[in-house]
């Protein structure tokens, strides 16, 4: 019993010293990352793929939950990919990775994981919804975001806001007519009053910007002058005053020829 007690005390002491050394070196938990290679695991696990995936999933939760939040979780994406490669029908890791990986400065990995999940769960709207957020907020890719949000609409578990977000992403693309059609559809078919109200605001904004762009083209044709700002239209008499929308002030970018709200 004395030796057993000594062994327990020695283990506790060595664990504490090791963890302290990790903290001082500002290193996240050391994991045998080669262990998480799914192609290797599949060969040695005697086809216990689901149980292995579950074990790696539990390890992932312990790694993420028990680690230092101020340090990067370098093994996280690999562990998540290993879980879903062992069991592609394990739904939750796709969603978990889709939320956490962008926060870990790995938006592309998060997007790849969600894309993988979409192949196996094509009816889960959240996989597209989260992908849309990553594309819009982390990668600033409105076109991709619009695609994801549009696909998400109408699918299981998709929040109603997906319609709004699709429209907002579409509104920043070149094809304003398409965005306008989208908002008109939302206004016509949406039952949620707050979403209908937002659709009305955006539709009004798009109508205003489309009209302004037409007026600018007309002014340039008629006067032969290059219009550099909306103030020019007021000075030339095409507008009485600078237009306002509920989304804020508008500005004209002479390089792109677009009228958009001021950011």
């Amino acid at each position, binding site marked *: 019993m004395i030796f057993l007690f000594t062994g327990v005390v020695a283990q506790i002491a060595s664990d504490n010293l090791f963890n302290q050394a990790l903290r001082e070196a500002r290193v996240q938990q050391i994991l045998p990352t080669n262990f998480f290679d799914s192609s290797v695991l599949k*060969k040695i696990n*005697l*086809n*216990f*793929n*689901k*149980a292995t*995936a*579950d074990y790696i*999933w*539990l390890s992932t*939760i*312990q790694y993420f939950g028990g680690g230092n939040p101020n340090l990067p979780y370098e093994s996280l994406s690999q562990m998540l990919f290993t879980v879903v490669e062992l069991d592609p*029908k*394990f739904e*939750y890791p796709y969603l*978990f990775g889709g939320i956490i990986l962008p926060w870990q400065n790995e938006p592309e990995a998060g997007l790849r994981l969600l894309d993988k999940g979409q192949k196996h769960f094509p009816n889960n709207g959240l996989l597209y919804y989260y992908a849309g957020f990553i594309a819009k907020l982390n990668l600033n890719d409105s076109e991709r975001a619009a695609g994801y949000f549009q696909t998400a609409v109408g699918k299981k578990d998709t929040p109603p806001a997906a319609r709004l977000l699709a429209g907002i992403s579409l509104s920043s693309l070149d094809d304003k007519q398409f965005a306008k059609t989208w908002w008109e559809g939302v206004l016509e078919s949406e039952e949620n009053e707050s979403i209908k109200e937002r659709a009305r605001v955006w539709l009004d904004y798009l109508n205003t910007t489309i009209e302004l762009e037409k007026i600018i083209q007309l002014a340039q044709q008629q006067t032969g002058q290059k219009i550099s700002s909306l103030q020019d239209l007021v000075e030339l008499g095409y507008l009485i005053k600078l237009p306002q929308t509920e989304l804020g002030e508008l500005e004209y970018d002479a390089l792109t020829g677009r009228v958009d709200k001021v950011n």
Partner: protein
Amino acid sequence: MKALITVIHLTLLQIIKSKIFYLSLVLSLFLAVAVILFSDISLGQNIRIIQNFGLAGTFLLAVLISILASANIIGNEQQRGNIYLLKTKPVADLTYITGKFLGLTFGLLIIYLFSFLLVFAGASIFYEINTTQIIAPFVLSFLEIAILIAVAVLFSSFSTALFASILTLAIFFLGHSLDLIRSATTDSGFFLESVGQLVYYTLPNLEKFNLRETISNLPNLPTTYYWWTVIYASAYIIFCLCLSVIASNKREW
């Protein structure tokens, strides 16, 4: 028939009185508690963890015990010399081997069923377990264990308990790796490919009984699949028992 029933009965008693039996009960209890505790730290994936770990854990426990019990019970009889006493009785080798196999199979069924019920009945107190996804894998896993018992009986009929255990364990690993072996030897030349094919069809393909991985992806497996699997298991078991009888006959007692 009377002799067969006597051998089955005595084998069952040997299993129930053995330390392995009580150890298996204790391990089953640990497994049940561990599975439920692990499921609590799975971020909401409780039922999935219980199902996968429960099926895999109970199966591996039953496989280990079946290999150890089968090899040891027959091996011990030979070591203690009880087999010589039996040889003086009018008990045919076929009766003895079949009786041992059936006794071991019933004993392992008791152990496997106990651990299975302990894990899933315990878990069902806290969670709603989908029984359709665990019953079929349990049944096919038991058929796999029956094959391993037959293989262990075969190896025990001509070797020591330890060697029989090791060989049976090797067959367990090989049985789950046959697809890998076959794909590795495909397009590797006529000789290697032939060896690969021979190994694939000769050794027991234990993956056929692995419904743990596929049940959720293929919920509508036709009934004929299950019948063919039962026929495959029965044929292989009878093949092993026949080889055991031949090996036992050839042995000089």
